């Protein structure tokens, strides 16, 4: 049995969990942890320039790699800065472990310097959290933290470790197995329910697959592709599911919801059987609930029982890991002939009636064109991180995602400032080119992370679709507030090229198609950070759009 101090235990635990990278930012209460980080050689610590970014980077790493992301922060302000990162990961069910320093146990509750009730604050933003009170429980808590983060419905787990615990010495035995009496996620779908679901599918006339982020979290893409192809059932995808089906798959009707395709929204509205796989009927997808899937019965597969029946009643609830359930479904489904052909023919009409499109221009760059050309120039093989806003929706609509884990975006919380830091994480998760697409508003929210990349000689290409507006909010003001552009006009913006140069990267500012193509090609050849500021049409809107509260078949099309 090894005798170790708390900080050594943290390093050992990370080694046991196979952690390669930790993103973080040091401070007083975390000094012991950082001292040990310096001495060990199990993992590499990447110093971000803000704690929020450390957690987003761990999150981006987790999304791109499928592994658990890890971040370290110090107590007080270090921790509070990290909260948006936790909430973002929680909303999208991303597995990560945040280890925060805390003031020493005798100081807790005294309003000591840099003390904050961290577990009290993180509680609603995490899957679970721990305040470590003795050195003896530290190994078990670390083991449980990783287990909870990655099992069941994944999510962030926060471990708050007082400074004296990081120095205290105890016996280190890292548990091999988890013995949690109270936490036992159901991973296998109930066979009877699966059988009933199969029957419902064979009896339906207009089934539709409604795919969500759970499909990516459970790595169920192959099984879902197989299922869709055998049964020949068309599919709509949420923002979080893009890549689960190939973009050129005939059955793929594209993104659904507020900015979804006409075909996707119509098909979902007219379906008689919604087969919901790892999605949760978010209001951005359902629109007006009373009009949603009015004639449809619902099969709902989810690892999280509380997701089922929360918004929409499910006639066929199946609790289980989606991959497992899909293997069973593929095994049991028995569809003879192409019985859904008439339904697909009907959808084909919708597809032709209002395909996704935009009015291109040679005078002014259109963001949609830029997104399409990012795909062309990178051979559709880059990892794309986005911020939040119009550009995010244009990426979702016009970038052909063909594989899971290629889009990193804050879907559930909608966190501006997510793009660049999550791209930082992705740069450590993958050898593929990493491209962050941001708006000019959001890019400024975590711009300091250019430094993290420059310092580590990592190439991330930052494409700023600059409309000199908080574009998405401006769009709502255009449609619903009679063009009163209250506080969304960003006519005065910094010189992004010089800023990037100031950080030690390379900057481009482009206004034409040729300039854009040349800049991106050049940026791909660099081995350092770049910013490509693209001046786009200021008043371009994201269409189609379902006004908030309207039925999803009532789209503003142009």
């Amino acid at each position, binding site marked *: 049995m090894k005798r170790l101090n708390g900080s050594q235990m943290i390093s050992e635990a990370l080694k046991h969990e196979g952690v390669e990278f930790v993103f973080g930012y040091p401070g007083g209460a975390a000094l012991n942890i950082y001292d040990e980080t310096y001495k060990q050689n199990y993992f590499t610590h990447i110093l971000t320039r803000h704690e929020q970014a450390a957690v987003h980077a761990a999150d981006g790493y987790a999304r791109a790699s499928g592994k658990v992301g890890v971040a370290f922060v110090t107590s007080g302000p270090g921790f509070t800065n990290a909260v948006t990162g936790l909430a973002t990961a929680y909303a999208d069910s991303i597995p990560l472990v945040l280890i925060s320093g805390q003031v020493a146990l005798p100081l807790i509750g005294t309003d000591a310097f840099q003390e904050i009730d961290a*577990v*009290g604050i993180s*509680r*609603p933003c995490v*899957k*679970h*959290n721990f*305040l470590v*009170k003795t050195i003896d429980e530290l190994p078990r808590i670390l083991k449980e933290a990783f287990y*909870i983060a990655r099992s069941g419905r994944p999510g962030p787990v926060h471990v708050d470790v007082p400074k004296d615990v990081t120095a205290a010495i105890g016996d280190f035995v890292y548990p091999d197995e988890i013995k*949690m*009496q*109270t*936490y036992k996620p159901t991973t296998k779908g109930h066979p009877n329910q699966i059988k009933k679901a199969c029957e419902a599918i064979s009896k339906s006339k207009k089934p539709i697959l409604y795919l969500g982020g759970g499909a990516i979290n459970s790595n169920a893409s192959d099984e879902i592709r197989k299922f869709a192809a055998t049964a020949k059932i068309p599919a709509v995808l949420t923002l979080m599911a893009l890549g689960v089906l190939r973009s050129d798959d005939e059955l793929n009707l594209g993104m659904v919801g507020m900015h979804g395709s006409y075909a996707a929204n119509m098909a979902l509205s007219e379906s008689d059987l919604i087969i919901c796989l790892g999605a949760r009927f978010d209001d951005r997808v359902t629109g007006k609930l009373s009009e949603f899937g009015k004639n449809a019965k619902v099969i709902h597969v989810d690892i*999280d*029982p*509380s997701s089922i*029946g*929360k918004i929409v009643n499910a006639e066929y609830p199946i609790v289980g890991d989606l991959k497992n359930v899909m293997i069973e479904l593929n095994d049991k489904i028995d569809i003879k002939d192409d019985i859904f052909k008439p339904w697909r023919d009907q959808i084909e009409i919708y597809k032709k009636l209002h395909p996704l499109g935009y009015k291109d221009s040679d005078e002014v760059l259109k963001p949609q064109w830029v997104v399409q050309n990012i795909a062309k120039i990178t051979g559709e093989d880059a990892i794309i991180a986005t911020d939040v806003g119009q550009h995010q929706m244009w990426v979702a609509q016009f970038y052909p995602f063909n594989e899971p884990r290629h889009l990193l975006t804050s879907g559930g919380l909608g966190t501006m400032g997510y793009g660049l830091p999550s791209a930082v994480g992705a740069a450590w998760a993958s050898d593929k080119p990493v491209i962050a697409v941001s708006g000019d508003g959001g890019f400024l929210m975590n711009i300091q992370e250019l430094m993290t990349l420059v310092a580590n000689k990592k190439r991330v290409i930052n494409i700023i679709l600059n409309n000199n507006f908080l574009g998405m909010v401006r769009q709502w003001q255009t449609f619903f507030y009679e063009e009163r552009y209250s506080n969304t006009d960003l006519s005065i913006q910094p010189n992004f090229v010089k800023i990037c140069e100031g950080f030690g990267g390379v900057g481009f500012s482009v206004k034409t198609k040729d300039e854009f193509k040349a800049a991106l090609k050049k940026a791909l050849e660099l081995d350092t950070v770049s910013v490509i500021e693209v001046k786009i049409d200021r008043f371009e809107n994201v269409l189609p759009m379902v006004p908030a509260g309207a039925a999803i078949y009532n789209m503003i099309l142009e």
Partner: protein
Amino acid sequence: MRRVISAIVLNEHGVLSRIAGLFSGRGYNIDSLTVAPVPDSEFSRVSIVTSGDERVFEQIVKQLHKLIPTYKVIDSGEYVEKEMVLVKISLNEDFSGLDAILKSYNGSVANANENYIIVMACDNASRIDCFIKVMKKYNPIQIVRSGSVMMEV
């Protein structure tokens, strides 16, 4: 609609605020909440009285289940439900009839000093409501209710 739920949860620090936070964060009602350790175990038993429609109730149960320290949620079947109340009355009041009232509500005198007596009753919540109403005629100075505890039968 009034609902009662019991949850068996790990008896660890912070678990009560997880439960209370679940209710406050989601806007669910808590009419009463009582907690105490389950003897000879590492668990606590939480008894919650809440109100809401079928869907809200289903969510409360699921969300309680979702908490990592939750071992079991008991939400159906028949219960024995009991709540306790303490009522402080000035000794200057006229106590005629008090004995009979206490008798009919499982009540007794819990304490008395030179200024007050404190009476108590133990019964189900709606009977406690009645008891408090009846006690009004003695102009109670203070009333403390415990919240319900229940046990499935």
